[in-house]
């Protein structure tokens, strides 16, 4: 019996068109723009000035708070400017502009391909490497990994879950790294397992990726027989259902435990990391390589088959550069989305630069993206059935439109994970998520304001 989460969920067509395309390394562009906000939490502070020469892997942004992360230069070259530049959503953010020269890596970074399977003994050494190399969660939220790996002393981690579900349609970058870099991912898992002091680590992969499941299972058993520290790692096949890759859904699927409202995974003894994060942890700890690159899928139904690609990019490449390298934006594309079609965001500014967490350039056609006209709610309850958090989106929508914040809080709008299942399943095309997302923000702000003075 394959496992999955217990309530809600939808089954969109997975459209993994780019699954067969091997990861290609993008050539260096002329200029890169490295954002200082590539993680959740406080923005990094730029520590270089125009005219400075930086080498690949050099720190150019320092964290400014507990939840913050280092930012490294992804290229060698001269800093041209440090200033505001618009990000994906058009919001001005401090970027460091660097004119690119041929690579000259910082000392101490191992750029070879040799696989290092011996896991360091010192826990603090591992954590320092993860922190100093700016590793953040690559599953979407870009939460600093070193913070996640240090649970508060009163909470005890029991199980590490690696998220290889990749439940969003179209995206194939996680799938490709599981096929091409499976050893590194497993070593990364073993490193995190060691840091957390847990005996069990589960790599959850959805059933629509049988090659990845076979490859990962084989890699795990090979490493278990050849090196120490790999016991307790297992690959688990999950049923295909969106949003399986949601943190709370994955915990439910793997451990059959539910995280309470406003709770954290650690409350039920779980720590969830994406497979791409695991790869970044491997690079950071075993190779001392900062997180300056990631994999990104360029895909869409309107893109010719030979242009469906998975690219290895470095942070700071302008999206327009990637689109051009791929052969330009197809004419039929009406919308370009960063992230998957369910949770991704439309890009309003293609000049924006890639970030640590960039996962895709998805071209959607007018037909796929056009909003259908909204009609009245007939109380069919499809949204409530689809909600993986057990909420009632139709009710939340009503309350949100009337600005009833107290009732919204009582009906747990703050637990919404913004997966979009309600919007996907609504036969009346009501923009449920749009309303709920705004209400959720307001409620969480009100809750924070209420609890803040008490501390």
């Amino acid at each position, binding site marked *: 019996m394959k496992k999955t989460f217990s309530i809600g969920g939808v089954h969109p067509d997975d459209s993994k068109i780019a699954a067969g395309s091997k990861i290609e390394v993008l050539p260096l562009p002329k200029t890169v723009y490295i954002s200082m906000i590539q993680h959740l939490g406080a923005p990094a502070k730029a520590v270089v000035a125009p005219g400075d020469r930086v080498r690949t892997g050099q720190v150019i942004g320092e964290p400014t708070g507990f939840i913050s992360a280092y930012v490294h230069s992804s290229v060698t070259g001269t800093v041209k400017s440090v200033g505001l530049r618009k990000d994906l959503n*058009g919001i001005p953010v401090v970027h460091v502009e660097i004119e690119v020269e041929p690579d000259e890596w910082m000392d101490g970074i191992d750029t070879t391909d040799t696989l290092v399977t011996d896991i360091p003994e010192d826990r603090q050494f591992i954590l320092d490497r993860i922190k100093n190399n700016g590793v953040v969660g690559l599953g979407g939220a870009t939460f600093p990994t070193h913070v996640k790996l240090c649970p508060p002393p009163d909470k005890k981690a029991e199980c590490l879950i690696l998220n290889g579900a990749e439940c969003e349609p179209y995206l194939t970058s996680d799938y490709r790294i599981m096929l091409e870099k499976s050893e590194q991912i497993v070593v990364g898992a073993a490193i995190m397992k060691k840091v957390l002091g847990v005996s069990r680590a589960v790599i959850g992969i959805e059933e629509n990726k049988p090659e990845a499941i076979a490859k990962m299972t084989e890699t795990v058993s090979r490493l278990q027989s050849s090196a120490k520290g790999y016991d307790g790692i297992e690959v688990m096949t999950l049923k295909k259902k969106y949003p399986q890759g949601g943190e709370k859904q994955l915990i439910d699927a793997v451990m059959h435990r539910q995280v309470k409202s406003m709770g954290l995974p650690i409350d039920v003894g779980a720590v969830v990391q994406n497979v791409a994060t695991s790869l970044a942890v491997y690079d950071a700890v075993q190779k001392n390589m900062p997180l300056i690159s990631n994999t990104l899928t360029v895909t869409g139904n309107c893109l010719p088959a030979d242009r469906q690609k998975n690219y290895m990019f470095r942070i700071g490449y302008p999206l327009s550069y990637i689109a051009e390298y791929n052969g330009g934006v197809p004419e039929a594309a009406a919308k*370009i989305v960063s992230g998957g079609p369910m949770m991704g965001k439309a890009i309003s500014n293609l000049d924006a630069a890639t970030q640590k967490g960039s996962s895709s350039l998805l071209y959607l056609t007018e037909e796929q993206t056009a909003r259908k006209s909204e009609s009245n709610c007939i109380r069919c309850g499809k949204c409530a059935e689809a909600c993986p958090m057990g909420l009632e989106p139709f009710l939340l929508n009503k309350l949100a439109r009337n600005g009833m914040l107290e009732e919204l809080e009582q009906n747990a709008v703050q637990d919404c994970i913004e997966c979009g299942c309600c919007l996907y399943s609504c036969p009346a095309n009501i923009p449920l998520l749009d*309303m709920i997302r705004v209400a959720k923000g307001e409620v969480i702000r009100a809750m924070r304001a209420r609890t803040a003075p008490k501390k």
Partner: protein
Amino acid sequence: MTTTIIWTIVAVTLLGLLLAVVLFLVAKKFKVEEDPRIDEVEKVMPGANCGGCGFAGCRAFAQACVNAPNLDNNFCPVGGNEVMKKVAAVLGMEVKEKAPMVAVVRCNGTCENRPKTNVYDGYRSCKVMAALYTGDTGCAYGCLGCGDCVAACQFGAISMDPETGLPVVDEEKCTGCGACAKACPKKVIELRNKGPKGRRVFVSCVNMEKGAAARKACKVACIGCGKCEKECPFGAITVEHNVAYIDFNKCKLCRKCVVVCPTGAIHDVNFPTPAPKPKPAAAPAKPAEPKAEAAAAPVSKPAPAKTEPAKPENKEE
């Protein structure tokens, strides 16, 4: 049969009388003492229950007025000075005159001035749009044009101009309650002094980007050049975060700033004549003498700049 009916009537009547007495006694015993002046104050209120005063409706405001030591912090924007005078008379207190306020839309980013850079096809609400991204133009600060302010106005004083895509305030109907200002996620709408005969000068831009970037996004953006700040003889203008702001308490409506503004971001409304042009002349440009028949003209718009049709550069959202 008849006796049953009679007995029933008698029993019910007696029961009714008994309960009436009980209710009377209970009402006497547990009577909530309420200041009778609250009712009186409520009577003179406009009864709009708009919340513009900061209280939950007119009765709550009346209660607050009765409990307050003075009326300095309480003001009904809908009723204005007249109502406040009446309230003061009821309570036997002094009230300071407050200048009437009006909602002012501080954005002139029409389709011509501020070309669209992408198409927003999501739910038509400024709040939703602002939560998603910076908007469908190059300006991250200006009006989003979905009309949340129109929906918020209880008095029908704001409407969207279909040509410009910007909200227009009807000064006659606007009570200055501030509901629109609260509804605007971009804080484009501000409550400003209505001014003598409705005459006022304000900066019609809130773009905090540097001059070049602001100008690139919108032809009539304030570029924060500071010319108006230097020109103002009353120190009413401050330029902060690359955008000028006119303090309406200090502004004497001389309109020198309107003339020097290189982008036409400073607007003057309801003046009978255009702002005095001759700036180099030694004689200080006097504020145009108000003519007798200064009928409140609709908000004057600066001459629309010539522009080629807006070309959507990117096709997203």
